């Protein structure tokens, strides 16, 4: 096991991009195979969680790399969602790749628009402005009512899974099992690609410059990093990812409605980021899994405690849990799940430095 670990870490140093690509393909393939054994509902939840994970990846870059907080990414998600919904109603035959690329581009464009004044804002000002943007999303959708159908949802045409998947599953193409597996597979592949790009970006020149901005603005400026540019790029990337995630979300849900993309969604996204671990990419995946299964856990909790889901407590259980989690994680374990695991592993290495296999043979 440790031999494998060191082999990977050596390879990582020599060919970072190639290693990341290989690992991404490996893990994505494993996840794809797993979807074959999952039931229909789990696949659907997984697909939704993957869409969230893409959004959280973007948020992770914004917060982890440049140190800004956005509470508007739920709204950016909504913009991607509406881009996909409106486009696919008029052009149902567009390939999924093109539709999702459109969602990403629209997200990035609006992100640039909102991000330009954001370069002037710091910390709480920026967060406050993005809250205002999140609250302004629903009115914005109403203003463009002729395109967006106002408050009413836009139904998108159903995705038809390819024939080979249907024959693999042994169910007809239109069956729920095949459709949900297809949705999960699309989402996993998109998340894999998004993850790969983000991993490279994090370790690129731009990513390094941004982490320097987060750690020390003065040092960053002295080192020649343009603060406004770094901030606006980070904001745009996170909005682009939110747009992509929102587009994916619409494909999975089969509809887009403005009330989905409210302030509560932005707060949920932030809490998922914090729970998973700010500044870690695996934290975003953990956050996606948490949201994918949260409804199951809440249902289980309600069944155990006998709280009706229609009562005041039951209806607000999610808000209570996520709000409490946000506070407790930030106060007690600000690194989040992935960050804490990494921290513990690093401490272990410090305590018992594992020597290289070649050196263990050396008798003391």
């Amino acid at each position: 096991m440790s031999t494998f670990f060191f082999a990977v870490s050596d390879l990582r140093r020599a060919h970072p991009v190639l290693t990341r690509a290989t690992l991404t393909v490996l893990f994505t393939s494993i996840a794809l195979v797993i979807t074959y054994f999952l039931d229909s509902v789990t696949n659907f939840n997984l697909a939704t969680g993957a869409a969230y994970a893409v959004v959280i990846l973007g948020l992770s870059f914004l917060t982890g790399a440049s140190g800004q907080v956005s509470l508007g990414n739920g709204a950016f998600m909504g913009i991607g969602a509406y881009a996909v919904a409106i486009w696919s109603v008029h052009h149902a035959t567009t390939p999924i790749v093109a539709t999702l690329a459109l969602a990403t581009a629209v997200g990035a464009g609006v992100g640039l628009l909102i991000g330009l004044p954001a370069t002037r804002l710091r910390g709480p000002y920026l967060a406050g402005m993005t809250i205002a943007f999140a609250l302004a999303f629903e009115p914005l959708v109403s203003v463009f009512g002729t395109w967006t159908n106002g408050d009413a949802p836009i139904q998108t045409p159903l995705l038809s899974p390819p024939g080979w998947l249907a024959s693999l599953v042994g169910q007809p193409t239109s069956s729920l099992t095949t459709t949900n597996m297809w949705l999960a597979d699309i989402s996993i592949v998109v998340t894999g690609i998004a993850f790969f790009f983000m991993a490279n970006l994090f370790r690129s020149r731009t990513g390094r410059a941004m982490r320097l901005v987060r750690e020390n603005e003065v040092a960053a400026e002295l080192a020649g990093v343009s603060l406004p540019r770094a901030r606006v790029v980070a904001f745009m990337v996170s909005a682009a990812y939110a747009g992509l995630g929102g587009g994916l979300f619409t494909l999975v849900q089969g509809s887009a409605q403005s009330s989905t993309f409210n302030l509560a969604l932005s707060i949920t996204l932030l809490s998922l980021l914090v729970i998973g671990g700010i500044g870690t990419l695996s934290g975003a995946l953990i956050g996606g899994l948490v949201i994918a299964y949260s409804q199951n856990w809440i249902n289980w909790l309600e069944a155990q405690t006998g709280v009706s889901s229609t009562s005041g407590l039951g209806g607000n259980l999610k808000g209570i849990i996520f709000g409490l989690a946000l506070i407790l994680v930030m106060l007690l374990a600000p690194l989040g799940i992935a960050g804490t695991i990494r921290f513990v592993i690093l401490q272990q290495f410090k305590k018992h430095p594992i020597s290289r296999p070649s050196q263990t043979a050396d008798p003391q």
Partner: protein
Amino acid sequence: MDAFLTSRPIGDLLSGIVGGTVIGLVALSLVLIWRATHILNFAQGAMAMFATYIGMTRLQHRLTVNVIGIHFTVHFNYWWCVAISILAGLAIGGITERVLVRPLYGKPEINPIVVMVGYLALLEALAGAIWGTIPITIQTPFSFIDWQLGGKTVLLSPNDVYRVVATLVVAIVIALLFRFTNLGLQLRASAVAPEVSRLLGVRVGRMLTIGWILASGVGAVAAVILTSSSFQQPLQPPVMEAPFAIAFIAAAIGGLESPTGALVAGIAFGVMEQFVTDYLNSNYVLLIALGALILVLMIRPQGLFSKRVVRRV
């Protein structure tokens, strides 16, 4: 004169000022906390909403107290409930500062933002869990019927006057407290120069708590007068979300350091909201506010009423 007072723009101006009082008060409370602790309290609106629930759900309740064999029955009228709401607001402010905010001083900028946002979500969900999400209409002792002048309506009712007067009273009390009392001097000193104040014997930690208590009390007054408007804004968990967002924009435009700036900008935004709703569409209110914020921050990043603080290498 009558025709002037009953005209449409004057009516909008009057109702705008009435509506703007709430925004101004929330903006003022944000500035109070920002000046004291340099934390932007995202849960300000939610804290005020929660305090209002604690007080206003007592409305029309009875409490029988047994004092040495004699039963006293208290009928909770409107003013009792207002008093309870404000007391609850003060208490929530103090508890929040001691329990949630105290561990956050000196931490990275993002930590208080995340915690206060979590607190916002928690309070709204808790309010929904305890009191339900059905909006509650609150009756005040004042009439909601607008005055008449020469057969036409002036868009102003006794209840509106009550709301404006309550705002003015709060603003004047806060101003007097800060300017003319020993406590006010200590509060200002510990906000401007905490180290020096500590050396001079000011208990800075206590001042921070008092700052939060005061701000939370002001917020509670804002939520009370907002929901004391009959059917326009019934009490419900997200009732303070939109006023908070506009109040934040107003406070940021006025400069987060200036209480007067926040109050004036808040009332100005109330007037803007009324005109936009009347002549355009209420959907544009937040969009225009956001646009105004972006515009002002591009030109004067420190806000209209604040002195420039240079942040350069």
